[in-house]
Structures are given as structure tokens and as C-alpha cells.
């Protein structure tokens, strides 16, 4: 069973080669590969043996899983049940309690060094990691054990990729990202709060299809999906260039679809696929629905100075510092002024009048 290829599994389930061809075409499209690559995709997917996948959830809100289960193409059911062997996932698996943990340990042992580890949620380090435990095991310990036998790790969501919401100031649990702990395994960061479903599936599909890591940027994000900024791919971009900006969320400019920069859109500094892939099967995305990008696929987006503050404005108020600086500057200026006047007065006082007699001495 475990040695069956994907093609054989599909065949056993009564799906023809036409169905397989269609699956490959959809996968190729999802990976943003040219249609001519479909043959290569079909070739590698046909020979693919279902890799074991272990999914660990730490300090998270299950939003990433919610998002993933709403992926449209290729339908997640087919991906999960046909292409991968999901051996452990708190939320999706039927088993619970000790049985679930046994399944995880069994899978780790059986596929040591070969399984794909998916992590969502950040890992708390403060007070010995006491803030989040599963079956009495701290998140840190579970991650280190599972990572040791993983072929690669996918950090799903901004929490796992960059620390996310738990990492926001003042970070009470000492939350960190997967990449802060694991240094010796390849890590693919798939940030977003939550990530675009198609992007999550796309990253998994790429790994399954080619058995290798996609091309990553300096933050460990796949370039295929995070290579361009929201601003550069935004359909409202022409209005930015023309200087047409919505001033409030309900003015005439907002209704005419003008640029949301003034209303705090973080599109220029955010890299994600929202503007092209969109959400809910291509229905819409935040900027299209009239709200600026909040930059959720970037590190520290919670502490980036307010979702409704324009990108060019200060994160913190500088009024206090400015007032203090003016006061200190004025005081110092007055002090120097007084010192200068005293020097002048002293020079006058020390001035000795020279008389003709003095000169003739």
C-alpha cells in the first residue's frame, strides 16, 4: 500500500488517466508553470509515492487550517487523500489523546528522515516553554524531536514563519518562529494571516511534484508566490501614479476605487499573492473589497504602527521628543547667549582706555 504510486492509487479508485491528466493540468496551473510543463508534472506525480506528512500546531488560532480546508484547486481532498499521507493533524485527524500521539510517534519512526513536517503557530520559550504544551510535551521539545527526522519543514502562517501575533510586543510568552529554533533543516516559510489557500496547496504541490524546495527569497518565502509586492500587482496602482487617493472609506474616491495609501494600505512593503490569486476561489481580496492591505505576510506586522496609518508616517508620536528637544535647545541657546553677553560685558569692563600720555611713556 505504502509503495503504491499516485497513479496506481487513482486507478484503484476508478479514476482514469484522463482524470490524472486533468489533475496534472490543474497542478501545473497552480504552480504557475507553463502548460508545456504538464508532461513533466504528470511524469513525476505518476511516479510519486505518497510521502508522510506530520502537521504540528503550536501557538495558533487554527485560522491557517481553516484557510487550507477552503482551498479550491486542486481540491484539498484529492491532494490530502491521494497525494500525501497526513499522519498527524490535531484538528483534522479522527484519533485523539494518546492514540493521536502514538500515531505521530509511529509515523516519525516509520518514515524517519523522509517525512515532511508542517508547522503552524509560534513556539513559546519563556519559563521553559510552559505556555503551550500538548500531551504534557512542550512545543519546543515536540518541534525539536519532529524536526530531527524531517526531510524539510514548511512553516505555515505568519506565527510559524515570523512569530506573528504571539510575538507582538510585549511578547508575554517569549514566542519565536520555527526558523529561530531549527537551523539545520530546509525551511519553507509560507506566511500570511492566514496564507492564501492556493499558495499553501501550491507550495505543498511543488514539494510533492519535484521533491525539492522552491526558489526562496531572503525571508524563506517561495518567490513564485511572494516575489512581487501587493502594490505592484494591485489593480488600483494606476490611481497611485495619478495621485488619486481615497481620503476616507466612504468618500467618492473610495467608491471609484482610488488608491488606499492614505488610509494606511501596506501594499508597497508587502509581498504576497493576494492581488493575483485572490481569495475564495478568485472572488475578491481585501483591497478589492475596499480595505487597505495590513501587511500580514511580513514580519512584525502587528507592531508596524497601526493598520490605518499611511506608510510614510511615524510609527510612534514624536511630539514629546520634539517639544523636549525645542525646550532643551532653547535653554541651551539662551545659556550660550547669556555667556556670550557676559563675555562681551567682561571685555568692555576690562577695556583700558589708552591716553596720549600712555603712548608717550
Amino acid at each position, binding site marked *: 500500500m505504502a509503495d503504491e504510486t499516485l497513479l496506481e492509487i487513482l486507478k484503484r479508485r476508478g479514476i482514469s488517466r484522463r482524470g490524472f491528466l486533468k489533475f496534472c493540468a490543474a497542478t501545473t496551473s497552480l504552480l504557475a508553470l507553463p502548460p508545456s510543463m504538464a508532461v513533466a508534472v504528470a511524469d513525476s506525480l505518476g511516479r510519486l509515492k505518497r510521502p508522510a506528512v506530520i502537521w504540528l500546531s503550536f501557538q495558533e488560532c487554527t485560522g491557517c487550517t481553516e484557510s487550507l480546508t477552503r482551498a*479550491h484547486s486542486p481540491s484539498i481532498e484529492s491532494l490530502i487523500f491521494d497525494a500525501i499521507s497526513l499522519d498527524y493533524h490535531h484538528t483534522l485527524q479522527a484519533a485523539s489523546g494518546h492514540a493521536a500521539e502514538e500515531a505521530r510517534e509511529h509515523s516519525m519512526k516509520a518514515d524517519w528522515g523522509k517525512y515532511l513536517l508542517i508547522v503552524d503557530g509560534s513556539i513559546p520559550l519563556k519559563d521553559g516553554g510552559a505556555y503551550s504544551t500538548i500531551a504534557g510535551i512542550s512545543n519546543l521539545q515536540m518541534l525539536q524531536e519532529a524536526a530531527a527526522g524531517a526531510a524539510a519543514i514548511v512553516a505555515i502562517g505568519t506565527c510559524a514563519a515570523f512569530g506573528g501575533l504571539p510575538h507582538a510586543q510585549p511578547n508575554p510568552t517569549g514566542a519565536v518562529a520555527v526558523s529561530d529554533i531549527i537551523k539545520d533543516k530546509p525551511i519553507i516559510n509560507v506566511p500570511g494571516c492566514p496564507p492564501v489557500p492556493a499558495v499553501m496547496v501550491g507550495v505543498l504541490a511543488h514539494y510533492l511534484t519535484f521533491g525539492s524546495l522552491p526558489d526562496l527569497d531572503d525571508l524563506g518565502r517561495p518567490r513564485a508566490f511572494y516575489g512581487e509586492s501587493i502594490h505592484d500587482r494591485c489593480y488600483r496602482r494606476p490611481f497611485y501614479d495619478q495621485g488619486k487617493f481615497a481620503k476616507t472609506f466612504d468618500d467618492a474616491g473610495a467608491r471609484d476605487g482610488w488608491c488606499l495609501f492614505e488610509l494606511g494600505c501596506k501594499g508597497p512593503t508587502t509581498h504576497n499573492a493576494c492581488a493575483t490569486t485572490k481569495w475564495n476561489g478568485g472572488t475578491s481580496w481585501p483591497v478589492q473589497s475596499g480595505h487597505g492591505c495590513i501587511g500580514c505576510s511580513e514580519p512584525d506586522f502587528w507592531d508596524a504602527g497601526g493598520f490605518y496609518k499611511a506608510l510614510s508616517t511615524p510609527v510612534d508620536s514624536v511630539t514629546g521628543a520634539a517639544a523636549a528637544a525645542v525646550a532643551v535647545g532653547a535653554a541651551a541657546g539662551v545659556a550660550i547667549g547669556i555667556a556670550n553677553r557676559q563675555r562681551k560685558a567682561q571685555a568692555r569692563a576690562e577695556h583700558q582706555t589708552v591716553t596720549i600720555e600712555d603712548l608717550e611713556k
Partner: protein
Amino acid sequence: MSSLKDIGVHVVHVGGNGNARAVLREVENLLQKLVEKGEESSIDLSGLPLSAEDYDLLEETLGEGEVVAEVHSLGPTRIHETGVPGVWWVTHYNDEDEVLAEFIEVAWCPEILLAPEDDVKDGLEALRARLFELKQESNHG
């Protein structure tokens, strides 16, 4: 009680962004390749930023042809030949009728319509087995 319809929605038509024309030019090139060299190819529509207007322009320009076909495997796949023979519009759906992928194929016949050789061989075996069964039945009957 107010309904959703009572909420004023201002629909803005931003117009095509010119990508439909680019796709049509590409179709022209691919079709020429098919005619001259017999090379088949396709364009992935889901990867292109097409506005609704662009989409309409694309559909209008290519038009409707003679062939309409549907394949049922992993959800329906609907195919029609456009008004330009050799240019096929192929849309893959999943079981919930959501679009998985959409292509314009430039080919003598879309690949998914051709019976795969391995399936034909399997079919031949299955048919022979069925004929054998029938023969047995008539012998015993």
C-alpha cells in the same frame, strides 16, 4: 426589513487592461505554428490578469464553434471549439463545479478528448473478458 438589494452598490467598470489583445496575438502565433509545423500548445488563462471586460472581449472575438464536449473524470471538464477551428476552450471543474483551471488549447483535438493508449488496452481486455463471460453464459444457458 431591508434586504441586501437595498444597499446601494456603485459598480465601476474600469475597462479592459489590454491583456485580451495580447492573448489573442498569442493565439494567432500558436495557430500559425500548428498549421506550419503541426505543433500543439496551450495558454493557461488562470495565470493571466484578465479583467471581466478582457474576458468578454476574448470570448466574443474567438466566438462559438461546432463542437461541444464534456469529460467526466474528477469532476466535469467542459470543452468547446471556438469559432476559430483548432482553437479550443477547455475548462476543468471539480465536483463542486468550481473552476480548477482554464486553458485555451491550440490543437487538432484537445488531448483530454483522446482515449489514452493504456486505457484503450485495459478496455480491450475488459471487453474480451466480458465476451468470454457471455460465451460461457450462452453455453450453459
